[in-house]
């Protein structure tokens, strides 16, 4: 099984990407392993093009798939299933060390998800980070102390501010959060072993952990109030904007209910009662799943800096270039897009208006963009107040500024 593993396009274990210049950006560590491709996508993409990777986000971690060094978007999970991610709040141990003396790799299956997914991760002898939640995970990396330090920093941020599925985790295992002298801090949990139970003694040699730096602050802003007059959704016109890109042309499509990024035109019938299916070649986010829609200005951008990822079918590349000038920052619990466009301020105002319309006139289907989002991400549910139903405020763990650009490069316009 190990011999059939394809050669890795990238050396496993390096810490590429924006980190550490953008400390809160997703941190991607390519690892060895096998990728499973659904039968219907096997004609379009081969296993040799894909590589498993450990992806650490601000409040969660996952094993995802890379293509040409860019992550492939995970498929939408089935109803009742969580996304193929693990909350940092549920991590008990993140310990650097060295794996030695094993005659075969330590293999584990990280997530059971739909679409293109990591079938198996293999950890060979060498430096690694031991992650324990319910099971043992090992991430082979050349810089285990730095990776464990970064995981610990983000765990502290989650303990202070919350994060993805954190309340659910703490409700089931309260010992995973403790009260320290400077506020809440991550707990080790009860009955957490000091040594990986899946390994025999002497195989795992722990390293000294580096001191942990201060976690970043959360957002401190109220959502903008409701507009004076809300139009009916059938009065809203869907449109698309062609973004300037160093790669293939990229289109941002704005409908009454969602945003789409794609290389091909995807503008379809307006979605008032039902919604046309989203093509798999497009990256999309429902407006109900966005907490922060803000216009700002970027300065000091490197010309080669870009946010890159592939859509669910691992075929279409989405490349959002970072250039100096106006930009639109979109952040939600599962999404962060930073779109550089000259009319960012108008676009932000229009998207905020459409968020209110989408909240007031949701599609009736339980699988529609609004109700499915409210079901899957309860923090996005509208809030009933004395003045009526309003959009929810951004959660405290939302970043204060875009995570995909260096600190200080973003100046909000409003």
């Amino acid at each position, binding site marked *: 099984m190990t011999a059939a593993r394809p050669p890795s396009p990238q050396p496993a274990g390096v810490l590429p990407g924006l980190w550490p210049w953008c400390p809160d950006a997703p941190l991607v560590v390519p690892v060895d392993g096998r990728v499973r491709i659904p039968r219907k996508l096997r004609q379009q993409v081969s296993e040799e093009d894909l590589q498993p990777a450990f992806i650490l986000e601000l409040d969660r971690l996952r094993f995802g798939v890379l293509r040409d060094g860019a992550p492939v978007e995970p498929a939408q999970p089935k109803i009742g299933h969580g996304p193929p991610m693990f909350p940092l709040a549920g991590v008990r141990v993140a310990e650097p060390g060295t794996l030695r003396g094993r005659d075969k790799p330590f293999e584990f299956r990280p997530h059971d998800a739909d679409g293109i997914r990591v079938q198996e991760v293999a950890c060979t002898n060498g430096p690694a980070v031991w992650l324990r939640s319910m099971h043992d995970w090992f991430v082979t990396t050349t810089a285990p102390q730095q990776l464990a330090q970064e995981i610990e920093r983000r765990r502290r941020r989650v303990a202070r501010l919350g994060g993805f599925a954190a309340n659910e985790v703490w409700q089931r295992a309260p010992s995973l959060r403790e009260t320290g002298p400077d506020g809440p801090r991550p707990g080790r949990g009860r009955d957490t072993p000091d040594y990986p139970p899946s390994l025999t003694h002497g195989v795992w040699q722990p390293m000294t952990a580096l001191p942990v730096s201060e976690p970043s602050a959360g957002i401190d802003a109220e959502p903008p109030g409701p507009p004076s007059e809300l139009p009916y959704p059938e009065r809203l016109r869907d449109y698309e904007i062609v973004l300037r890109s160093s790669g293939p042309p990229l289109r941002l499509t704005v409908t009454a209910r969602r945003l789409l990024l794609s290389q091909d035109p995807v503008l379809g019938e307006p979605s*008032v009662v039902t919604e046309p299916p989203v093509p798999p070649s497009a990256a999309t986010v429902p407006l109900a799943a966005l907490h922060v829609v803000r216009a700002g200005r970027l300065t000091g951008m490197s010309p080669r800096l870009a946010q890159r990822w592939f859509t669910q079918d691992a075929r279409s590349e989405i490349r959002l270039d970072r250039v100096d000038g106006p930009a639109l920052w979109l952040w939600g619990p599962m999404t962060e897009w930073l779109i550089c466009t000259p009319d960012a301020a108008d676009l932000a105002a229009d998207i905020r208006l459409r968020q209110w319309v989408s909240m007031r006139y949701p*599609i009736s*289907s339980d699988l529609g963009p609004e109700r499915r989002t409210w079901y899957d991400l309860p923090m996005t549910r509208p809030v009933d107040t004395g003045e009526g139903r309003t959009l929810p405020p951004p959660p405290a763990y939302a970043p204060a500024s875009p995570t995909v650009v260096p600190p200080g490069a973003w100046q909000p316009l409003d």
Partner: protein
Amino acid sequence: MDPNLLGSMPLAAGSSNLAPFVPIAALVVLGIVGRVVVRSRKGHNTRVRPGDLAERYRAAGVHYTSPPGGFGTPTGQPLDHVEGIRHGVRFTAFRRTEQTGFTFHVNDPNNSMGERNFTSIVRVSIPLAQAVPPLRITERTDKERDSYRAFVSDVNAGAVATGILEFDDRFLVRCSDLGFVRRIMGPELAGWLRGHHRTTAYTDVSGPLSGIEFAENTLSVEQCGHLEPDLVFPALDFLVEMLSKVPPELVPPREAAAPPAQGAP
């Protein structure tokens, strides 16, 4: 019988012998009375005689028609119907049956094919002043109660959001004419529907009912049961009250009610 003979009978001794049987006799009497009561109530619910219904409707000034040969009428066809004027509004109501299931007799050698189950449905309609596009108001299927049905078959899809959030949380409005929905579904009608105690009876479509329905020139509701005044008149009152919440151009002119029949109880 000679009354003197009674005085000579050993009553005291006899009463003492019968004393243990008194509670048993009381229980037997109670059982007979209860059986009679249950049978009478059961017959009241399940057996509706056309002659009785005609009498009851005639007392209210409503004409009742029961076509002969109700048994064997094709599913969905009107069986018996009434028409008349109430609160100044002309109305019609009819009963039909729908097949709602099938019972298999696996262990019965005499009836191995099983039998179809039918449900009796009463539809009450009042006219509108002008033709309207088809519009149905039903209740959302609760995903907490029936998650498989709500999610897998997506039973709640295809409705127009009215923008009245508390109403949309509970109800679905299905209509292909958005302009008509915007014209008719105002806060007044939505609030009245939410607050009325009979709305759920007419909008719960987990069975064979079709909800509150605007179609062509009529406004209708459906309910399971027989064509009895106890079922027809509350539905009619509901429709008439609802008519006061729709735009005035849809309301027909009031008519004078026919006088009740003479000699009616």
